[in-house]
């Protein structure tokens, strides 16, 4: 069994699309957001509560959808109301196990295919990433990048995006009134990723700019295949350009509809035309004071190759 490939990025960084594309490689298997490493024990994963009784998120019930759909697909070969009910029982019978044990069980079940997963929730705390690497010491990581202006505007304009930013604490409180500022999340999530990856051998991770992925897909996919040591022939690359062929690239049954961004699930196919890369200079639309990017955000973005 090969340890999985994880995609690490703040939310709204093309993670759904990149995960589904890469996961369509004949030797890989893209999964929805499992969120397993957000909990230590399966009992905590199921209840959505921290050991101190605090609810992890008001939306925790929805955050289990990816796991339910995965178990349903793996063990029933379909995602229906009944198979999701079976998946619930499958999870509940493992309530005393650690999330890592259960993740390994899933990885062994699909071997020799290698799992590809992204759960932006893993970046909420270093403890989640530590659980991940303790379970899969040889895991590989794609650090997926997006220009801060594009990522921040996407979050601010998404339905429920500002509320998500608030809940995640991306609030500037240095002035008199609090200001919702997505660049805080962009910066700190990337710092968390860099800090985590610095502790691993460099060959275990790769940085990919999301805009380059979409604008020059063939070259970027070939680079990823080369790095992973998997076949990069035309047939494999072509398969990766059809994220819509994944059994997880559509809405699920009514009792486990999501497991991914709803916009992606409703329209998973690649769209013709590329994306434009914005600039770092200039005021930020979401700042009432007309401020520009924080110097540290701009510095980090430049190190990632953005201007």
């Amino acid at each position: 069994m090969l340890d999985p490939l994880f995609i690490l990025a703040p939310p709204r960084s093309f993670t759904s699309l990149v995960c589904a594309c890469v996961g369509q490689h004949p030797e890989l298997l893209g999964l929805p957001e499992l969120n397993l490493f957000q909990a230590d024990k399966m009992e905590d994963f199921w209840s959505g509560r921290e050991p101190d009784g605090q609810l992890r998120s008001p939306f925790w019930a929805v955050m289990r959808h990816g796991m339910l759909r995965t178990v349903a697909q793996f063990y029933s070969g379909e995602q229906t109301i009944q198979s999701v009910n079976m998946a619930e029982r499958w999870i509940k019978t493992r309530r005393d196990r650690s999330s890592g044990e259960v993740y390994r069980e899933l990885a062994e079940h699909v071997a020799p295919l290698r799992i590809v997963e992204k759960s932006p929730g893993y970046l909420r705390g270093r403890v989640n990433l530590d659980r991940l690497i303790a379970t899969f010491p040889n895991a590989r990581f794609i650090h997926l990048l997006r220009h801060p202006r594009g990522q921040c505007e996407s979050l601010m304009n998404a339905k429920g995006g500002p509320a998500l930013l608030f809940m995640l604490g991306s609030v500037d409180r240095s002035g008199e009134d609090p200001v919702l500022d997505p660049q805080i999340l962009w910066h700190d999530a990337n710092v968390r990723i860099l800090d985590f990856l610095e502790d691993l051998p460099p060959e275990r991770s790769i940085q990919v700019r999301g805009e380059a992925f979409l604008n020059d897909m063939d070259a970027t996919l070939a680079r990823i295949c080369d790095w992973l040591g998997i076949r990069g022939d035309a047939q494999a690359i072509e398969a990766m350009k059809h994220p819509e062929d994944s059994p997880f690239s559509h809405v699920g049954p009514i009792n486990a509809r999501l497991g991914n961004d709803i916009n992606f699930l409703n329209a998973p196919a690649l769209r013709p035309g590329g994306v434009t890369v914005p600039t770092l200079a200039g005021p930020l639309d979401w700042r009432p004071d007309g401020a520009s990017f924080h110097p540290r955000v701009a510095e980090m973005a430049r190190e990632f190759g953005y201007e």
Partner: protein
Amino acid sequence: MSEPAAPKKKRRAKPVEAARAKPRRALLGSELNPAGAAEGVAPISLKDAVADPALRKMGVELWRQMRGTPEAPPPTSVEDLWKQLPNARLNSSSTADEINRYRERLGFRATMLEALLEETLHELDLLAHAVPADEPPPEPEPEPAPEPEKPKSRKKKAA
């Protein structure tokens, strides 16, 4: 005589990603939020949002925007947040027939759970009056003093 120079070690190529080689950085969430967590941006708990008037105001405004109802009463608990989600149409891969059968099953489960809850609460009430078999028998109460005999009624029973 100087020692011969040691053969130059092949230096490992620097990773393409320059950012990774830099020392660990300060976190923006800690700097821009004086009361924030040392580990940077961190989720705001409902408890914290309620306790801080500015955060509370912001949270309620955002919640109303999300619901699209500016007059909606603010949520008071996490469960309340969940209940007050907008009634958007939920698309899914389930057919009408599957949804109907699922509705029937959930309805049956709800009835069963209601009955179970009712019965459980009733049993709990009964337990309050239960006498354990191993409880020592109560002390015999002193016999009450005999009441003075009442005079017999002279009224005749109706035929």
